[in-house]
């Protein structure tokens, strides 16, 4: 497959060179499979095999892009695409800057993230995995939902600047298991991200679910009073906030366009809790990393926040070209964000619930439908979902209805952070809008943040 793809790219490059064109070619091939569960049944079982070719043509400061979804063998279609985009580039209005054309200095082939066993999981194996993860937990009222998403993702690229190609192949899987009460409407969830088959662990999912199900079945849900709470965020909630911080925190482009909550003056200053360290680190295979960016820059560990001190903005090539900055190797579909663990010893929810506490703690595992209320101030809003718990000071546990949190990320990750768990875990944040784009962030399992305001509290689910 690799040879076929590289050969296609080389032929297309030769065609463009012969015509005296300047183009970059980005090839994407995905084999995606998704088994979806709802109402304790398989509600959908899909396979998609999609080949995309993205051709960018340059003429000095003019640029246009053409993307084809087509058959792998249709070289003539692809060549026609090159002709089309070259014509478009000639018509495009010149940019105020000259965009950089990728120039690969050597072939770079990376298949380290590919695990054949994961990529080729059979339908039967996936069903068996799900059956094991939910064994004995389903009832007439308690229905199973979820997904088993897995696949293979290939990026390959070449440009007319050199004969060298870059090629990346990864396998990935994301599993979500939800148990939802058909009439009472509460729902609990457990998730897993895997880069290789050996990382899949149905038993662990089962354990996490069983613990929450037991709590939820035993307790009567309560509406929480509005006000301040000491909150323990679970890893899904932490991952979501970190993802938003990526949009409006450390993106140089967002800064220049007025949509960032940090600015140049903050570089070198303590902006967050000294318990917070965030690095874009492609050495973590769990994040489905790219070790070269699409321009050809080597991607090394890039500290963004070190013990609360803001270190640097990230610059994708096009923003760097436009704003006269130096690119930082971030011209990639997704970063490899790693949030360091802290010093609090807790390795599971069960342990967290069992630990002695000096005050009530509101555990929020997941923030649903988060959005940016005010990017300049870093204010986000989202609602708890999938198994929140109020851990009372006296050791008892209350099941709450969902609540809404509307807060600045600068506050959430600021001096209110009381502790960060030592243990970290990969959380799958892959997108399947359009092209398959595997991505996971490595985040602490838990983080305690004191004195956060709850702005809305539900009276039912």
């Amino acid at each position, binding site marked *: 497959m690799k040879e076929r793809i590289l050969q296609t790219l080389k032929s297309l490059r030769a065609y463009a060179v012969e015509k005296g064109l300047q183009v970059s070619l980005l090839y994407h091939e995905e084999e995606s499979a*998704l088994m979806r569960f709802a*109402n304790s049944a398989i509600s959908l079982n899909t*396979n998609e*095999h999609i080949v995309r070719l993205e051709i960018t043509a340059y003429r000095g400061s003019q640029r246009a892009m053409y993307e084809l979804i087509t058959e792998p063998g249709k070289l003539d279609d692809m060549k026609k695409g090159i002709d089309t985009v070259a014509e478009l580039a000639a018509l495009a*209005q010149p940019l105020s800057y000259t965009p950089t054309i990728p120039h690969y200095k050597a072939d770079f082939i990376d298949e380290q993230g590919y695990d054949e066993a994961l990529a080729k999981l059979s339908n039967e194996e996936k069903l068996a995995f799900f059956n094991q993860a939910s064994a004995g937990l389903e009832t007439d009222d308690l229905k199973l939902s979820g*997904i088993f998403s897995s696949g293979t993702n290939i990026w390959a690229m070449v440009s007319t600047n050199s004969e060298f190609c870059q090629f990346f192949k990864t396998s990935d899987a994301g599993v979500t298991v939800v148990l939802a009460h058909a009439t009472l409407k509460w729902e609990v969830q457990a998730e897993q991200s895997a880069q290789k088959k050996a990382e899949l662990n149905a038993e662990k999912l089962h354990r996490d679910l069983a613990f929450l199900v037991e709590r939820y079945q035993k307790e009567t849900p309560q509406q929480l009073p509005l006000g301040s709470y000491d909150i323990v965020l679970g890893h899904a909630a932490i991952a979501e906030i970190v993802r938003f911080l990526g949009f409006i925190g450390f993106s140089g482009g967002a800064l220049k366009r007025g949509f960032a909550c940090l600015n140049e003056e903050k570089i070198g200053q303590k902006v967050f809790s000294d318990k917070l360290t965030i690095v874009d680190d492609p050495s973590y295979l769990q994040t489905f990393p790219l070790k070269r960016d699409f321009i050809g820059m080597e991607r090394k560990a890039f500290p963004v926040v070190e013990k609360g001190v803001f270190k640097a903005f990230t610059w994708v090539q096009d923003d760097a070209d436009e704003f006269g900055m130096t690119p930082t190797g971030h011209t990639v579909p997704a970063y490899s964000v790693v949030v360091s663990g802290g010093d609090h010893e807790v390795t599971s929810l069960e342990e967290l619930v069992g630990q002695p506490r000096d005050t009530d703690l509101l555990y929020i595992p997941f923030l649903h439908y988060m959005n940016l209320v*005010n*990017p300049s101030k870093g204010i986000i809003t989202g*609602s708890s979902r999938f198994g929140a718990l109020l851990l009372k000071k006296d050791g008892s546990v209350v099941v709450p209805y969902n609540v*809404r949190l509307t807060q600045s990320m600068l506050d959430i990750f600021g001096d209110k952070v009381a502790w960060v768990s030592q243990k970290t875990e990969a959380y799958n944040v892959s997108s399947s809008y359009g092209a398959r784009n595997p991505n996971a962030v490595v985040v602490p399992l838990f983080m305690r943040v004191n004195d956060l305001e709850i702005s809305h509290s539900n009276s039912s689910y």
Partner: protein
Amino acid sequence: MRKQIQQQIDRIKAAGATYVDARWYPVDEVNNLVMWNGNLKNADTTRESGMGVRVLYKGAWGFCASSDLSDIAVIFNQALDNARVAAERVTFPVHLAEKDIIQARFESPCQIDPFSISLSEKVAFMKKMDERLNQSGVEQRFATMTFMRKQIVFMDSEGSQIEKQITEVFAGMQVSGRDDQGMTQERSYRLNRQGDTRGWESINPQVFEENADRIVREMQQVVAAEDCPKEDRAVILLPGIMFLQTHETIGHALELDRILGYELAFAGGSFVTLADFGKLRYGSPKLTARADGTLINSPGSFGYDDDGVPAQNTVLIDKGILVGAITGRQMVEEANVKARRQIFNGSGGANRATSFYRVPIERMTNINIDPGEDGTLDDIVRNTEKGIILDGDRSWSIGSNREQFHFANEIGWLVEDGQVTKVVKNPTYKGSTVPFWNSLSAVGDRSTWSVQFVDNCGKGQPSQIMQLGHGVPVCRFDNVRIGE
């Protein structure tokens, strides 16, 4: 190709499938242009082609799609295999509601094919708009245009064959500037329905120029304004936010697959239960909402859905009472059986997929609110003691069962004793869905009603983006918490 598809459908049917359909997209083209501060950042064209096949076997779905059409039997075989495995875990066998067998063609109304317009002409128009937006106090100027053209051939094992040719035009612009605290404030305009067709002709330069001047002026006012107060007031929602309120707390809440628990793995459920149909007072008697797939010229009108069911105009909420939902063939059957009564008479024709490589799911058509009898915007303002007019969708966040929401807007105008007094910045409002719609106290007349387009509605796994519309009037809701 049609002959080949028919042969494959017959073959899979003979292998034991109860239903098979195929959607072949000979072409699905998108042209997206983005201009940022005068720079043409995106001049992108996408051209897709491929086929998606659905197979129903022993009450379970299998789906397969590929851009490789060199041997389409492979796609059909994989879809059947997927269905066979899915059939090992069935709790409620899928049964499809009856439909008519249809041989038809649908073409969305379009006078001038936007793909016949040269890139230079499109860029020249954007450049003109960008220059118009380049006024004092404007720090960022953003303009975007998206053109879509798709041909879809639908064939099923029941004998239907439908061909659709759909053309869409989306366009918008935004300006932003900084207030005295250095915080970004923004104001935007999105092209709504202009007349009865939706080709290049809907890009009316005069409409854009007027709106460019308006958003700049309003952004300048917001930048100089005080913060929105934190208190309870009547909110008067202009169509630029009313469409989203309708979308999020009526549209998504009334998708029957959500109500039946088919989206719990990700998007969420609905506070609505099957027992609520015909009974629940969703809103005040001033509220009548409908899913109108027959509305002329809107992305929510597509002739026939991806089950091959003709577009319909379905009442969802009748004078405040919940009576209908957004439905496809599968879900109506399941809902009627589970409710032990006939709530739905067949599919509402709202099952759609975003592309050949995604499976159809229940999607909004045009989720509209009927105009009311409370006059013009001026009339509503005159009859409001303490209120705030809100416009622009800056942020939206909704509870997983659509039971509560939080919206942030671009601009607010305070209303005191029937008069607009001043502009405020950073306005927000929040509420709980049913109490909120029951506090609906004024619905504007037809002069306040317009059809807003949505080009980015996300749902499903794998994820799908859908285009649709909302015909909405100006509405007023009482005692709403703002500024939080």
